[in-house]
């Protein structure tokens, strides 16, 4: 009897515990509206205008009981003062609970990013627990709300897939930098280097493209045909959490090559043939090792020596020079490319020193090692010292292969 009594008490207690606990943050999966991207613009009355790109889970599903005729996405914009409160405000229109679980992209208009206040709103992302640190930051030429509306991927059924694919591919081809929320916050807080954000637009800009090569921004690449208007190309430059400029695709690549934070992806580039300037050579460059950056500090002016080893595969040979066969021509080509690279890089470094007054290469990480303690490093003030530094870049090219078939026929022989 006594044992049974205890048993009953125990069972009751356990049942009570179950009823007390649990289910606090239980959310049935289908009762959420999944935001794929949020857009941020400057508001007219409130400080921000937020745009939600909400994915329709039923769209594109071929499962039984899952397919639908509804549109793929739902887009809503309204004004707000922060990133957290609109979660509930949006429910005036959206039937389901807004969830940031799928939110992997924050799209910000250039105009807002250039605001001094921008950093204040970015720190909202650290407060809301559902926002991930690996969320991509995309900066658009036009308003983010317009960008989201105009962006119409042709083949990617779901918006989240489109953003994931195009950004990953863009990073892999070095068209855009790897710009995540985490990196933005880290670089801003370290207060030494520049942060590069992804630059994108749906607006097409008519420019003269001839001989510009990669010196273009998003929106400047001429495309025709039946495709999406959106372009992801180039980067935006942030200093102390605020946007201060833009980099072309080429400058973005140079900064990736010189960066010590991580290795840059392989890139496809083209440059004029040294022997016949009217033809261009296409090449694939691979960074085998991250650049060796040496920092020498004398009181007053510091000196930075950068040694950049690059592996290069020559892909085309329009001038029919047969570089694979001729050692001397190859030597000449090597010299020419090294020279060209060094010049271009130096030009860019000088620009960062003069225009941005800080570096996007993460060299401060090297500088940190030179000091015994953090206060010493802080006293040195990397960002203040950088514009005066004497930077010296040397590039070393090693050739890989010269195409699948290295030899080309003599043009004179073909055309006799």
């Amino acid at each position, binding site marked *: 009897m006594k044992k049974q009594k205890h048993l009953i008490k125990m069972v009751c207690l356990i049942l009570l515990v179950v009823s007390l606990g649990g289910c606090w943050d*239980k959310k049935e*999966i*289908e009762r959420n509206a999944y935001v794929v991207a949020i857009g941020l613009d400057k508001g007219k009355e409130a400080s921000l205008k937020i745009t939600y790109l909400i994915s329709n*889970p039923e769209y594109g599903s071929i499962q039984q009981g*899952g397919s639908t005729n509804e549109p793929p996405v739902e887009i809503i914009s309204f004004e707000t003062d922060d990133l957290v409160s609109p979660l509930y405000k949006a429910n005036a229109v959206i039937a389901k609970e807004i969830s940031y679980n799928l939110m992997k992209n924050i799209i910000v208009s250039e105009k807002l990013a250039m605001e001094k206040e921008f950093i204040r709103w970015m720190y909202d992302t650290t407060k809301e627990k559902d926002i991930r640190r690996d969320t991509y930051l995309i900066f658009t030429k036009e308003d983010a709300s317009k960008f989201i509306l105009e962006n119409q991927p042709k083949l990617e059924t779901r918006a989240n897939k489109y953003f994931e694919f195009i950004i990953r591919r863009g990073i892999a081809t070095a068209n855009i930098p790897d710009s995540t929320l985490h990196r933005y916050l880290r670089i801003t807080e370290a207060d030494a280097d520049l942060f590069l954000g992804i630059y994108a637009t749906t607006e097409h800009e008519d420019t003269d493209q001839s001989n510009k090569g990669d010196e273009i921004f998003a929106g400047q690449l001429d495309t025709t045909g039946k495709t999406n208007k959106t372009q992801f190309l180039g980067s935006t430059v942030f200093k102390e959490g605020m946007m201060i400029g833009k980099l072309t695709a080429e400058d973005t690549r140079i900064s990736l090559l010189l960066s010590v934070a991580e290795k840059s992806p392989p890139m496809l580039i083209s440059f004029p043939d040294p022997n016949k300037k009217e033809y261009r050579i296409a090449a694939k460059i691979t960074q085998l090792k991250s650049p060796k950056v040496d920092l020498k500090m004398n009181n007053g002016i510091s000196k930075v020596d950068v040694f950049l080893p690059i592996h290069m595969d020559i892909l085309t040979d329009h001038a029919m020079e047969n570089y694979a066969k001729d050692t001397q021509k190859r030597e000449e080509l090597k010299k020419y490319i090294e020279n060209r690279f060094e010049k271009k890089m130096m030009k860019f470094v000088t620009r960062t020193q003069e225009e941005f007054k800080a570096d996007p290469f993460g060299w401060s990480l090297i500088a940190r090692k030179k000091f015994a303690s953090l206060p010493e490093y802080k006293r040195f003030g990397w960002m203040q010292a950088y514009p005066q530094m004497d930077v010296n870049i040397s590039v070393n090219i090693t050739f890989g292969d010269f195409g699948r078939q290295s030899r080309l026929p003599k043009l004179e022989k073909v055309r006799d």
Partner: protein
Amino acid sequence: MLGDLLKKAFSSNKKSNPFHEKSNKEEIQIKEQKIHSDLEYSMTIFKEIYSFPDNKDVKFRTFQIGGLKKQACLISISTITDIKLLDEYAIQPLLRNDNPSFSIENVLAVQALSTVEYNKDAIYEINKGNAVLFIEGYTKAYSITAANFQGRDVSNADNEIVLKGPKEAFTEKAASNISLIRKRIRDENLIVESAVISKRTKNELFIVYIKDLANKQLLDNIKKRVSSLNVDSVQNLALLEQHIEERKLSLFPSILYTERPDRASAFIEDGYIVLLMDNSPDSLVLPATFWSFFHISEDHYLRYIYGNFTRGLRMIAIFITLFSSSIYVGITNYHTEMIPPDLLLAISATREKVPFPAIIEVILMEFAFGLIREGGLRVPTPIGPTIGIVGALILGQAAVQANIVSPIVVIVVALAGVCSFLVSDISMNFAIRIIRFFFILSAGFFGFYGMTAVFTAGLFYIVSIKSFGVPYLSPMTPKYTSSKDTVFRRLLKNEIFRPGYVKPKDMKKT
């Protein structure tokens, strides 16, 4: 008020002897007596005990022994005795004998002969299928071993199927089961002890072990436990298992039940003790650890790599069975950020039109799957395939089309169901299937946190329980010297130790 109700519900009925029982003290007294020298008197007693004319298959054969010129009576139950044997080797030699000075032992040409002195022993022998010979003027009777019970022949194992290795299985005849074990272990140290374990039916239990291997303490413990049973009848080992196990309410089985003689012999050779019984086409192996339920004999018959491959599959299958449904519930209710976006959207899309919360949906499907499984088990063979098709069609296809469950739940539950079949031991199979519901509930209430808590508590429990003094997870934890045959097995040449936790008298196998 609630307390009063509970008290009433649990208060025991204190009236003594509510049954109208009838004492058979007299009969017991007669049975306790020695065999009377007066044959006439004895026969009257026995005819009464066996309700002679009513009980059709009890035979009293009265005849005069040649030479001796004495009346004799042979009592047997014809349905369980070999009548031909009795006729040829017992009755005929006695009738034809003309030598006046001879001993009964030398005339009876039967294989085994023993004498009994008490009525109750004679009754016991007759009930066992033997024939008992009473002779005028003798105060003892001869029991002639002539039992011939009907039963199946040795046939294939139905439940523990292997592709490679012996196919024989135990049958309902204990004698042939022992023969199957002796066939595998030709060792004079292999002991087959017998013990009567029930009061009325007198069921006989055989305890099989190797004398110079099995631990004495363990053996005594088991003997004590089977001899202290106080029941009228234990029909077979499945019932005996429930009588002798330590934790009768535990989810986990503590005695291994196998129908394969090769498996039983392998355990005997490792120092375990095996119980056999008539009417049981199987054996009990004790003590049992978690691993003995996890393993099957084919693991060792297959080559090292193949055997371990199936072991790996089985271990994964256990985890899939335990966790797949609960992970689905946990993820869809609490941890949506953990799954890839496309899967999240796919689940969300299919859940859109489903009327129930995820946990109800899963429990519904689990319940339906359980029904199909139990139904399919009991269905007569000719309509067996039909129920499979109906079950799969209705529950899989139609339920999804009717938007009662989402297709992903069908996948999750079906996967868990299929994986549960990899654990071939029926007790462990049930244990895992029941535990799965705990995980589903905990995931429904607390998400992964709850699952982790239940898993941890379960681990505590499984480590704490013992089977006949042997920790359940040994030799993994606590550690014992053994061949380390746990999740994976080792090469045969490296399996040189007997399991240390059964404390065999000889540790090394080589």
